[in-house]
Structure formats: structure tokens, C-alpha cells
């Protein structure tokens, strides 16, 4: 399974030694496994922002989350400014537009999301559910080690990819715990409110209100209650109303009555145990047996320039390079 720099998106092949000295493109030392098959959307959906995507190197067929993110990038490209200028409704409409720029990839996730308006498109519904799941990690799994990468608000504090705090603040506590709609979880537009505000004059009122409305705790609670069931019961119908996506998720939150409940397929996504095994196969100096349990290969540690490969709770891992361990950086 290839690796991907979480900072610039550069992809490295299996067992690449290149990345062990830090990302040659941006110098970052935080990486994640890059999923090779559709539907397997690991941490990428949770908190990668489009602006850091590096779309040129990305495998667009890799995951629904990637497809959504790249989609947003493509949409914003024509005006050659930034993706923040696109509103939620623009984005959602674009997703529903079959005339959107041609995509050559055959991955069903990307296509199905683009063409998703068809309510009978089972594959689309399934993949969209997968995307929603990847982005808005449900509460029904225990957190911590052994679970899949979590929602943006739960990323480790040091994570440079963490979305702006304002996003969570506007939602209140429960939103931080659980983003409540698929569009929300993957929507780039609301990530840079400051920039969007600067363009307010270009917007119509509905766009404005869509973004400026703040979700009340009551709405969140209602949405939460509605969605309390299986995590992927989501969009078997039309995509969520853009307004709802931005501000009122409660109204459009799908329920069991909307159609068939689609359970997320655990086979679609490698779990953390598999990722650990993969990591250990490729770099064996530190074997993560279980959360908090490690086996160390002293000779490997001694022989290598790079030292720490730490698989974190969110499925990411960090490689420490020697430069960070100079005498000047040590405690006295």
C-alpha cells in the first residue's frame, strides 16, 4: 500500500526509503497509507483540505473522499483563485451536474458521486454513504486505537491538517464530536470563512444565509437523534439540500424511512490492524503490536537514519528524522 504525505499529498510507493528522510517535497514527516481501492477512505477524508491536495499526484480513483475533494478543486479551478470562493450550494450543484468536466477514471466512487442525483443508483448511494462515513466518523465505534481515523475535531492536537477551530466552534460541542451530514464532512467551502466573507458581494442572499446561519445546539441534537441509527443509512435519496448542508442538517437528515439502510462494509476499508501489519512489514524497526504495546528491533533502530514510526490513533504515523534530534533539541 503506498504512502502519502499528509502535508503536500505526495505519494510514495510501498517500502519507499525516500520518505524515511522526510517528504522531499515539503519536508513533512507525517504520512498515511494511501488507499488503493475505492471505498477505502482512510484518514484522508477526515481532515485533508483541498488546498493542500496536490491533485497532480493523486490517484483520483482511490476513494470517494478523494473524488469529492478533487471535485471541489476542479470546480474552483476555472476562476483560478481559490476553492474557498465556491459556496456550498455551488459545490453541491456542481456535484449534481452530469455535464461537469470529464473524468477519465473508472473508479465508481468518483463517478457515482458526480452523478449521484439518481435516487435508484444503489452504487452511488453506497459510495456516498461510504464517503459520509469516512468523513463523519460515527460514535458507534469506540474511539482510540484500533478504530478508523476519526472526525476532524478529534485529530491530534499537533496535527497541522486540523481544520480551523471556527468550524467546530460554530457548531457547538456535539458537532465537534460528530459532523452531521455527508456534504458537511466533505465540503471544502466552509473551511475558510474569512476568505468567503471577503467575497460576500458576489453572493446572493440564499448563499449568504446558507453560510451565515449557525446551527443551534437544538438542531444538532435533533439531527443527532435522527441519525443515531446505522451510520451509513444516509443518502439513498437525492443529495442533501445545500442549505441544509450548510446550516440546517436536522431538516434533511435521512432516516430509516428514506430507504434501504446500507451498512458500511467493513471489508471496504482496511482496519487499523491491517495498516499496522502493513507498516510493520515495510518498516520493522518498531512493531506496534497493539495500542500501547511495541516490539523494537534494536539493530534496525541502530542501523537506520530514521527512527520512529509511530502509528497514531487516527491511522497516521510519524517518521522522525535525525535532524530533529540534534543535541540542541534535547533536554538538559
Amino acid at each position, binding site marked *: 500500500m503506498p504512502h502519502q504525505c499528509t502535508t503536500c499529498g505526495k505519494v510514495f510507493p510501498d517500502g519507499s526509503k525516500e520518505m524515511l*528522510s522526510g517528504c522531499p517535497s515539503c519536508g513533512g514527516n507525517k504520512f498515511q497509507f494511501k488507499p488503493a481501492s475505492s471505498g477505502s477512505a482512510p484518514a484522508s477524508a477526515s481532515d485533508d483540505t483541498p488546498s493542500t491536495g496536490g491533485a497532480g499526484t493523486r490517484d483520483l480513483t482511490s476513494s470517494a473522499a478523494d473524488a469529492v475533494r478533487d471535485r471541489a478543486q476542479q470546480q474552483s479551478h476555472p476562476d483560478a483563485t481559490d476553492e474557498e470562493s465556491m459556496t456550498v450550494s455551488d459545490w453541491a450543484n456542481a456535484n449534481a451536474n452530469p455535464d461537469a468536466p470529464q473524468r477519465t477514471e473508472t473508479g465508481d466512487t468518483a463517478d457515482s458521486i458526480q452523478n449521484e442525483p439518481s435516487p435508484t443508483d444503489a452504487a452511488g448511494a453506497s459510495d456516498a454513504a461510504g464517503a459520509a462515513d469516512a468523513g463523519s466518523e460515527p460514535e458507534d465505534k469506540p474511539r482510540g*486505537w484500533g478504530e478508523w481515523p476519526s472526525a476532524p475535531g478529534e485529530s491530534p492536537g499537533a496535527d497541522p491538517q486540523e481544520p480551523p477551530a471556527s468550524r467546530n466552534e460554530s457548531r457547538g460541542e456535539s458537532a465537534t464530536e460528530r459532523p452531521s451530514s455527508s456534504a458537511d464532512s466533505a465540503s471544502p467551502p466552509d473551511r475558510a470563512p474569512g476568505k468567503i466573507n471577503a467575497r460576500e458581494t458576489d453572493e446572493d442572499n440564499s448563499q449568504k444565509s446558507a453560510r451565515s446561519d449557525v446551527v443551534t445546539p437544538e438542531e444538532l441534537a435533533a439531527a443527532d437523534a435522527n441519525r443515531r441509527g446505522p451510520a451509513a443509512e444516509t443518502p439513498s435519496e437525492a443529495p442533501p439540500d445545500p442549505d441544509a448542508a450548510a446550516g440546517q442538517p436536522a431538516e434533511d437528515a435521512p432516516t430509516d424511512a428514506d430507504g434501504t439502510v446500507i451498512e458500511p462494509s467493513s471489508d471496504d476499508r482496511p482496519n487499523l490492524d491491517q495498516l499496522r501489519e502493513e507498516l510493520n512489514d515495510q518498516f520493522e*524497526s*518498531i512493531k506496534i503490536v497493539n*495500542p*500501547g*504495546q*511495541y*516490539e*523494537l*528491533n*534494536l*539493530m534496525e*533502530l*541502530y*542501523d*537506520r*537514519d530514521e*527512527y*520512529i514510526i*509511530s502509528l497514531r490513533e487516527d491511522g497516521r504515523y510519524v517518521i*522522525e528524522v*535525525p535532524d530533529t*534530534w540534534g*543535541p540542541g533539541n*534535547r*533536554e*538538559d
Partner: protein
Amino acid sequence: MGLLTDLRDSISRVVDRLFSESEPKRIGIYGPPNAGKTTLANRIARDWTGDAIGPESHIPHETRRARRKENVEIERNGKKVTIDIVDTPGVTTKVDYKEFLEHDMEKDDAVRRSREATEGVAEAMHWLREDVDGVIYVLDSTKDPISQVNTMLIGIIESQDLPVLIFANKIDLEDSNVERIANAYPQHETVELSALEGENMDEVYAKIAEYFA
């Protein structure tokens, strides 16, 4: 990269030894967890500089980052040596958070400590490869000295041609068996001591001054 780094280090090490007699030697204090490395480091630092190096604890892996005390001047029997003491995290091949739970630690803290300890081992190995001029290898004399970690580490130290002193610590405890250590590693000088109680520190300092001068 590794080859170049090795070459560079070898050259710099040789150059250091040839031309910088007055430069402080960097002496790494190594050993398995809970052998008393930090207690020893603190004892030495306090005796010669008045300051400590780091917190001591009966909970293993208290030291999870290498700590250094510079320019410690030790003088004994007319011999004088200036060293930088590097107190390193305990080296082990397994770290398990459950070990910390026995010390009334919450699970989250134990898991974090476990991860930091693992990183600490990696850092200790890094120091051993690149940053130390000599080693004080500390063993708990109440425990069997023949272990995978000890054998491997001492082997690495020997392969690096680093001067090493083996300190048989905790001789104040009943189960202490210094002879077992001396027999396990007869190729190296073994000095018994209790860093906690300050027993036999005169010999410790004499050996350091003699060996690392």
C-alpha cells in the same frame, strides 16, 4: 546516506580524539529500564556540579528523552576528566503499557507513556550510534544480566570500539549479585555501586577519571 553518515561520524570521532583532548567526552549512560541510570546520573551531576539531570522514579521508563549535563569535571587520584553526561532512556525490546497500569496509572497515560518510551529507545539507539564517546552501562545487580538487550547493546558498543564501564548498581539490595555481572561480561571492567545510597562512589569516580580521560 547511512554509509556517508557512518564515514562522517567515524572521521569526526577520530578527529575529536586526536585534536580535542580538552573537549569534554560525551559519555552515555545506558542500560535496561529501571537499572538506576538517572539515579546514577543525578548522583554524579550533583556531586560535581550541584545540579540534577532529571527526575527519578521507580516506575520504568521515567526517562523518555535523553538528558544531558555538560562539562562535569571529575577528578580522582590525580586524574581529571571533563565529560558531558547523557542520561538515556532505558533500552528494551518490548514496551507494554500494561506494565504501567500496575503503578496506578490510568490507561491513557500508560499508553502515552508506552509510546514515548518506545520513541525514547529509538532516540537512545540514535545517540549510541552517533553522539557518544564512551558508555557507562548500568545494570541492576539483582537481576540476571544476560538478556537479549544487554547482549545486543554491549555488542554494539564493542563494535563501535567505544570505551565502556559496566556498573553493577543496587548493591544495597539483598538480592544483589555483582559476581554474576562480572562473569557475564568478563571482557569489561565491572564496578559495583549503589547510586541511590552513594555506596562505592569513590571507586566509580576513580574509574571514570581513569577510563574516560
